[in-house]
């Protein structure tokens, strides 16, 4: 039980190698072959976005899993990213900036969630059903509004809107911003590593051990919501990576938040970069939605890890 020493280092090196491989392949391969101008103009920003968004989503998933003490939580479970989806769709319809719309939507949903769950967040009572239920309701509300918006979206914009909703990295911007945000988020989690490790034992346990539970939970909620909102604004609601990457690392025996944080970021970046490479090359010149491709690769992989880990 638990990876330590050389085996942990080996896993870390393997993850870094995977990321390097993914980035190299992402830059080198594509529908138009190897062309330096093309690589710099089109593929580099896209790979950068995949790295940043993948890292952000994996970190947001890790933070949500700790906050809710639920290994099945993902970045979207509390509905703040649903707000980003609604805002982004509205912006698409109105011809405004997608970034602005999604960002405002995420902020609005996050503020609403905070206002509705202040007491639940503050209490050291465990399991926090009120926080989860409020977030789930917010998520379904946003999902319903997004569906209604799709129903009234003009046909010529519908395809783009649907692709963006399920996650799409074509034309994605803000790779550098997402990458910097992910680095900051990982550093934050690592800095509070021991406190968050204790929070995972339960809010009451952490409080008894002297940790500032309320501040920690607020920190996790706000940072995870911001990260998810930023990722959605950049590339739509890409599923799977946020749930699976931290979970897989835990199943492989990584225990400490200090390790889980940066390894989740690297793993999420590598997974999304690879999935995007597959999405745009398999049936090129057509492109598949990267969110669907991710689940196609990731789900079987996760089942294998699950079978190994719980043996």
């Amino acid at each position, binding site marked *: *039980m*638990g990876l330590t020493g050389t085996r942990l280092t080996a896993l870390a090196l393997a993850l870094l190698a995977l990321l390097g491989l993914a980035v190299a392949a992402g830059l080198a391969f594509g529908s138009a072959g190897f062309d330096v101008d093309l690589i710099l103009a089109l593929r580099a920003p896209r790979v950068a976005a995949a790295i940043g968004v993948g890292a952000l989503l994996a970190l947001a998933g890790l933070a949500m899993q700790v906050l809710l*003490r*639920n*290994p099945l939580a993902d970045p979207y479970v509390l509905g703040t990213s649903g707000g980003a989806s609604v805002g982004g769709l509205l912006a698409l319809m109105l011809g405004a900036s997608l970034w602005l719309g999604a960002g405002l939507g995420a902020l609005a949903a996050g503020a609403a969630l905070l206002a509705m769950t202040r007491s639940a967040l503050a*209490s*050291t*009572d*465990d399991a926090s059903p009120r926080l989860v239920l409020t977030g789930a309701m917010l998520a379904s509300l946003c999902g319903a509004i997004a569906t209604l918006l799709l129903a009234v979206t003009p046909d010529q914009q519908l395809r783009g809107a649907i692709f963006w909703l399920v996650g799409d990295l074509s034309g994605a911007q803000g790779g550098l911003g997402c990458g910097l945000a992910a680095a900051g988020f990982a550093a934050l989690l690592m800095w509070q590593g*021991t406190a968050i*490790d*204790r929070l*995972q*034992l*339960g809010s*009451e*346990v952490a*409080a*008894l*051990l*002297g*940790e*500032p539970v309320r501040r920690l939970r607020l920190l996790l909620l706000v940072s995870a919501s911001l990260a998810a909102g930023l990722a959605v604004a950049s590339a739509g609601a890409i599923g799977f990576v946020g749930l699976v990457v931290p979970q897989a690392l*835990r*199943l492989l*025996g990584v*225990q*400490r938040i200090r390790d889980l944080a940066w390894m989740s970021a690297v793993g999420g970046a590598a997974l999304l970069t690879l999935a995007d490479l597959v999405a745009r090359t398999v049936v090129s010149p057509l492109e598949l939605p990267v969110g669907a491709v991710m689940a196609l690769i990731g789900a079987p992989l996760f089942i294998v890890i699950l079978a190994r880990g719980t043996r």
Partner: protein
Amino acid sequence: MSADRPTAEPLLETRSLSLRAAGRLLVDGLNWRVRPGERWCVIGRNAAGKSTLLRALAGLAVPERQGEVRWLGRRQADWPAADAAWARAYAPQQAVDRFPLSVQRLLDLSTVRPGAQRASAVLADLDAQWLAQRGVMQLSGGERQRIALAQCALQGAPLMLMDEPVSFQDPGHQIQVARWLARLVAPGTEAALVVTAHDVNWIVRTATHVLALWGDGCWRAGPVDQMIDAAVLQQVYGCAWRDVGGVWVAD
């Protein structure tokens, strides 16, 4: 017994502590002192308020409370959370694990004052030395309970509160835990212990003092040899008791 140090400052003190739950008065005006070297057991029928009292003593949320709890002479509310972890430790009735974690890592995380005790020594005392590298989610109920007791002791706080520490232990481990607790909180040590339990013979073996909750708010506290007798037991549990050659039997 602690009568040899009557002047020691109490580790734990309650002043007019009253607890209610679901409209019922559980504890009414409890004035009570726990001094270093004392091992207290709280007894009472189901739902008499034993666990609620322990939660209140630990500083955890309870439905309704009035009055004061003091640790080391200082009011509970005046302790910053980080300092309180140095004063009291609490083991819940049942720990809930959600994430895979090795026992060793769990014990490391539970240690607030390092060096007070060695984890390997505590595990050995609890017959759990081979569990250090196991995952917490792979432990049996009894094993997990002994690890929770180890967590409580390793935190390094002088006041230890344990809610039903032997409810999942087999008879052999019950005795082992009793001996360990007696060493952990021996006369002359800085530590004190408050547990809850139902097994009268285990209590006689383990505790130096008993606090009995009647369940209607009334309570009575005293040394174990005065508290454990047929009359008190009958009043607490509502059934007749006999002392059969030093073993208490309920009729």
